[in-house]
């Protein structure tokens, strides 16, 4: 198995990220001044002090932008530098260029603005009530929900609250831009979407796309945070480069990055679930209030994915879910691994746990009973096929013994008073494809050089997920070469045009299939040439371990010689591959269609232990039965599963993203106050069982997407903790409100008794959490 292709550079510290490249002598360093208030009309901007500061070369506002300042992936409603109005704290207003970073940042602090304050809304329900929405409310439905409630033996309803999440990619947002002689720009960006950056830069400069080159070697983490957030960063750098005629670089420091960039959307949701006497789900209704932030950004696309995943992996014959993007005065939220899916899944899972608690039965009983079968319909009008929900569940049961875990936990809880355990089983189902159909295309450019070495470029971005490793493996396999003969180049808009972003877990599928197309075209030409020379039928030939074989025996022709001869005989050693996912369609006017190429399934079991004295907890074990098709590189995929699991566990436990309700300020915008998982949060025991699967006809070499699905297991840890809390305090009204911080854990453990324990009547505290 090949290693992670970049790892050897990483461990030596020689991997280059944007600002690791040698600096041009006259490069300028940039800093932004952002809005100090969350909502208001700009009366005036005073940049005189900043302009006069040491080492400052130029100061820009929106008026200086040569092209169109407005940008946005769905609706162009935000300006690169604010025009007229600000809608969130930190919204860029002024751009400073100086000869060093410290001077630029110091000068930014000298800018003052006069802003007429407007009312600040941070609660999406308030925004919804006022009609402050991006786009229109959308509804996915099937069956007739209203007709069924009366027939339900059990109906539960409630609300579910879910906080956002900060990406904390280790490399903050950054870009370096070089002015081009034709008025365009060349930009080294840290982006998941080079074409989106190219469009944004071209628009800002007022030039056509062919005058903008975007190059991306790799990202120091993305997770969705560099899908759209990166556009404005790169565009600001390009604008400054154009206006000063010098190379520029904009690197956000961590606190600024956390304060001004979009994050995972917080949601507030209402649900209602109806069951038959046998425990069959008859009806589910929900309304999601997405906290979108100040501008549209990717919110409508994220919202759509919430709707697609609101049924998770359950058969729900009568289904109606509404969702709306609510405009508030926090950062414009954006893509984050899971892209709205986790928020949708969370609510149906809350509803099922609620029902199970009402009925006094184990939640997994209800979940197992209601898994989808082939032939069922997802509410978005796609019929279930190649369903692996049961395979995963049964594999989990077989490997991990779900009933045994439950029995052990009950016995432990009966014997222990101050320590309680809890478990939760969480099945997932994730549709793979961009729900925006045009994005489902991939491209690759493959060259073989005269020495037999192979290079490939694609429309995919290496951000740690192992894309390069997988693409190289695909090319190596297609050519019959060892992987060392392949080099994966930077992603560049001159070599690959019109790329979709590296997102939606689809990057390997799309670009890997494109690599396969390109490689096979060249291979076909090489083998035709070889067949001609050897005077044999082409279908008897193959390339194995860098040698030509005929009917399985060595044909005394090495790869390098074959390539050299082919070149001399003017055989084209380069090709371009294009791949578009077949058979997918979606019609938003009726909210129905064959939206996904396939689905990824899995089942996870979380076991936790709660210290009921201190309100702290430990995640003892996570066991996963996961559907991955035939992995291209199992170790890389395990790394994706482990990474996704812990990122999800962080979201549900210690990552406590807060906004001040009155000011709209993010009060956890530093590493000191926002805690991502460290090594001590890693479960003591992680068991990963990969489903032995006949494969997946759509993915390259029968592989399946792996980026986002493992993240979707996240709510499992919440429910396991909740169960342990209920084992200590069985009739507390707990509600559903993630994350489960140590604070919430302790307050819930003693819910109903805190006044008595503290010996007083509490003064109601203003809640600052949104």
């Amino acid at each position, binding site marked *: 198995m090949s290693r992670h292709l970049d790892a050897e*550079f990483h461990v030596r510290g020689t991997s280059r990220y944007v600002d690791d490249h040698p600096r041009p002598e006259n490069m300028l360093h940039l800093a932004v001044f952002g809005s100090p208030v969350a909502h208001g009309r700009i009366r005036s901007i005073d940049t005189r002090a900043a302009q006069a500061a040491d080492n400052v070369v130029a100061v820009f506002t929106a008026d200086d932008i040569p092209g169109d300042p407005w940008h946005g992936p769905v609706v162009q409603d935000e300006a690169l530098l604010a025009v007229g109005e600000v809608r969130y704290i930190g919204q860029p207003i002024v751009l400073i260029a100086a000869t060093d970073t*410290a001077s630029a940042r110091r000068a930014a602090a000298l800018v003052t603005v006069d802003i007429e304050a407007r009312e600040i809304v941070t609660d999406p329900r308030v925004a919804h009530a006022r009609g402050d929405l991006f786009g229109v409310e959308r509804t996915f439905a099937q069956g007739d929900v209203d007709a069924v409630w009366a027939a339900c033996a059990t109906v539960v309803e409630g609300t579910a609250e879910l906080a956002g999440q900060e990406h904390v990619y280790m*490399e903050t947002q950054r870009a370096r831009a070089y002015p081009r002689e034709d008025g365009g720009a060349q930009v080294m960006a840290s982006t998941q979407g080079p074409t989106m950056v190219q469009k944004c830069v071209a628009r800002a400069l007022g030039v056509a796309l062919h005058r903008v080159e975007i190059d991306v070697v790799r990202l120091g983490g993305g997770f969705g945070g560099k899908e759209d957030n990166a556009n404005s960063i790169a565009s600001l750098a390009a604008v400054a480069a154009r206006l000063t005629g010098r190379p520029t670089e904009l690197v956000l420091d961590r606190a600024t990055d956390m304060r001004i960039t979009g994050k995972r959307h917080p949601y507030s949701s209402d649900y209602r679930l109806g069951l038959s006497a046998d425990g069959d789900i008859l009806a589910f209704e929900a309304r999601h209030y997405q906290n979108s932030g100040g501008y549209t950004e990717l919110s409508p696309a994220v919202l759509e994915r919430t709707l697609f995943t609101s049924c998770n992996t359950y058969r729900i014959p009568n289904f109606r879910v509404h969702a709306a993007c609510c405009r508030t005065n926090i950062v414009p939220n954006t893509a984050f691994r899971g892209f709205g899916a986790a928020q949708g899944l969370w609510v149906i899972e809350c509803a099922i746990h609620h029902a199970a608690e009402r009925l006094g039965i184990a939640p997994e009983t209800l979940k197992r009973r209601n898994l989808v079968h082939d032939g069922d319909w997802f509410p978005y009008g796609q019929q279930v096929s190649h369903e692996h929900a049961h395979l995963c569940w049964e594999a989990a049961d077989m490997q991990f013994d779900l009933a045994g875990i439950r029995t052990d936990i009950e016995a432990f809880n009966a014997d222990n008073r101050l320590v309680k355990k809890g478990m939760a089983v969480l099945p997932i189902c994730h549709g793979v494809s961009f729900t925006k159909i045009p994005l489902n295309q991939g491209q690759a450019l493959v060259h073989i050089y005269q020495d037999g070495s192979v290079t490939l470029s694609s429309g995919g971005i290496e951000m740690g997920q192992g894309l390069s490793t997988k693409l190289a493996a695909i090319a190596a396999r297609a050519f019959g070469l060892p992987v060392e003969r392949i080099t994966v180049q930077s992603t560049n808009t001159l070599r690959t045009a019109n790329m979709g972003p590296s997102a939606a877990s689809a990057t390997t599928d799309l670009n890997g299939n494109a690599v396969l197309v390109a490689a096979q075209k060249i291979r076909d030409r090489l083998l035709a040439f070889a067949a001609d020379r050897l005077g044999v039928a082409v279908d008897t030939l193959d390339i194995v371990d860098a040698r030509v074989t005929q009917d399985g025996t060595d044909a005394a022709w090495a790869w390098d010689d074959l390539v050299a001869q082919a070149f001399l005989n003017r055989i084209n050693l380069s090709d371009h591959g294009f791949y578009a996912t077949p058979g997918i369609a979606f019609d938003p006017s009726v909210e129905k269609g064959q939206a996904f190429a396939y689905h990824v399934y899995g089942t996870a079991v979380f076991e936790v232990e709660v210290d009921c004295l201190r309100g702290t907890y430990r995640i003892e074990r996570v066991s996963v039965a996961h559907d991955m098709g035939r992995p291209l590189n199992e170790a890389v995929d395990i*790394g994706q599963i482990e990474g*996704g699991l812990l990122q999800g566990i962080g979201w549900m436990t*210690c990552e406590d993203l807060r906004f001040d309700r009155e000011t709209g300020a993010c009060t956890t915008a530093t590493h000191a*106050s926002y805690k*991502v998982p460290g090594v001590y949060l890693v479960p003591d025991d992680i068991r990963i069982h990969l489903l032995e699967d006949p494969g997946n006809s759509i993915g390259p070499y029968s592989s399946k997407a792996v980026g986002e699905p493992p993240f979707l297991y996240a709510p499992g840890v919440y429910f396991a903790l909740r169960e342990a809390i209920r084992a200590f305090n069985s009739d507390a009204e707990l509600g559903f409100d993630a994350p489960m911080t140590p604070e919430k854990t302790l307050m819930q453990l003693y819910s109903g008794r805190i006044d008595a324990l503290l010996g007083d009547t509490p003064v109601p505290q203003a809640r600052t959490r949104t």
Partner: protein
Amino acid sequence: MSVGIEFLLNAHVEHAHAGPTLALLDYLRDRRRIVGIKEGCHEGDCGACAVLLGRPGADGVWVYRSVTACLVPLADVASCHVITIEGLNRADGAMTAIQRAIVDGYGSQCGYCTPGIVVSFTELALSAQRMPTRDDIRRALGGHLCRCTGYGGLLRAGDLIAEALGALSLPANRSALVAADLLPAWFDTIDTLREGLDPAPALVSEGVPLAGSTDIYTRGPAQAAAPERLRLLSREPVLHGIQDTGDGLRIGAMTTTRELMESPAMAAIVPTVASDLLPVAAQTIRNRSTLGGNIVTGAHNADLATIMLGLDATLEIVGSAGRRELALADFYRDATQVDLAADEIVAALHLRRDPGRRVNFERVSKRSHHDKAIVNTFMACRVVAGRIEYVRLAAAGIGARPQRLRNVEAWLEKRTIDQDTLGGALDRLGVDIAPVDDYQGSARYKRLLLRQLVLAHFLVLFGDAVDMEALTPEVAS
């Protein structure tokens, strides 16, 4: 203001001319363009900028510690040895066993955190006294944030490194580590390199006293926030070391948290000190943070200060007017200011040994490790025949400063341990405290948490004598 600062940087003598307060990270990355070292947060939390910082220990043997370069003032590395990832690479382009372990363990994805982790794993190899356990590996990784791997591959890499170390006779000298490919070959020449170094360079020696700089340098981009003139306390020998004074200990103010954790003398007083302090910051920080710094900063949730309050520590304060002693509890009398004149520094803490004393430390933070305490508390007591002879109960996170809960102490002292005594103590917990709502938690939570942690003291210290049923009534069942 620019000064000349000389130190060893990897395998050469570096002559820096820069502001003394410039963060080492900014000097290396921005000025010198040594870019293997990464900036992830510039607040000491992520570990991406970790370097090995070597300086002579008490016995003259050089000690190398992994520290975050963003929190180290350049002046403080004068006459020291700084090793970056570039210095850990083999000259022939091959990987060391540590680098290979990370590659083979699939412990690197986006790679941004990786160079810092190689540095900390190298410290693990340099300081291993025995074959590292998973706990040792976690400790080495504790100051590093990785957002990609979920740490699975890094733990596996740690296991591979532990195996390589297990094959050696430990502790291993540098030559053995070079031979095992855990260090690049030039480490064998370190002693020669050091000979070229000015042992006592001219340094700024007046200005703001700076200990481990792990607090002040976290306040935004350091170059802007740090004071222009520094008094580097690391250069003052009288502030270092833990000495037995006959009836107790004198702990130099510059004693690091790491040194406290590893001190047998300290363990004789607080047997669980190593595990108590494990959640406090992370090894990369504990290698720099000092006892004196924690005391003088006196943050509202300081951990070492709480422990020292509970141990009745006395401060040794030195200034131009001479030397004085002051009980730590009196040092914090004022919520807004500590009792320290501008020309004074805390030189040491004195602890009295008391063989009959039993102690317990409790703390809770949002992230279990490497996070500030929401509430912490330390209890020390002597119990004779079921009666509390004396008790000290200190806590932090519930007021402007770490404090003693004197009402509770007064109630408990000279009483027999029974339900009435303990219940009465819990009833008195709210008297002296004034927690506030902040991002760490609500005031109400902090009050409940303090109650629970004091209950935990009783459970740990008085064990069977505590009827938990009575003190933690069944909520429902």
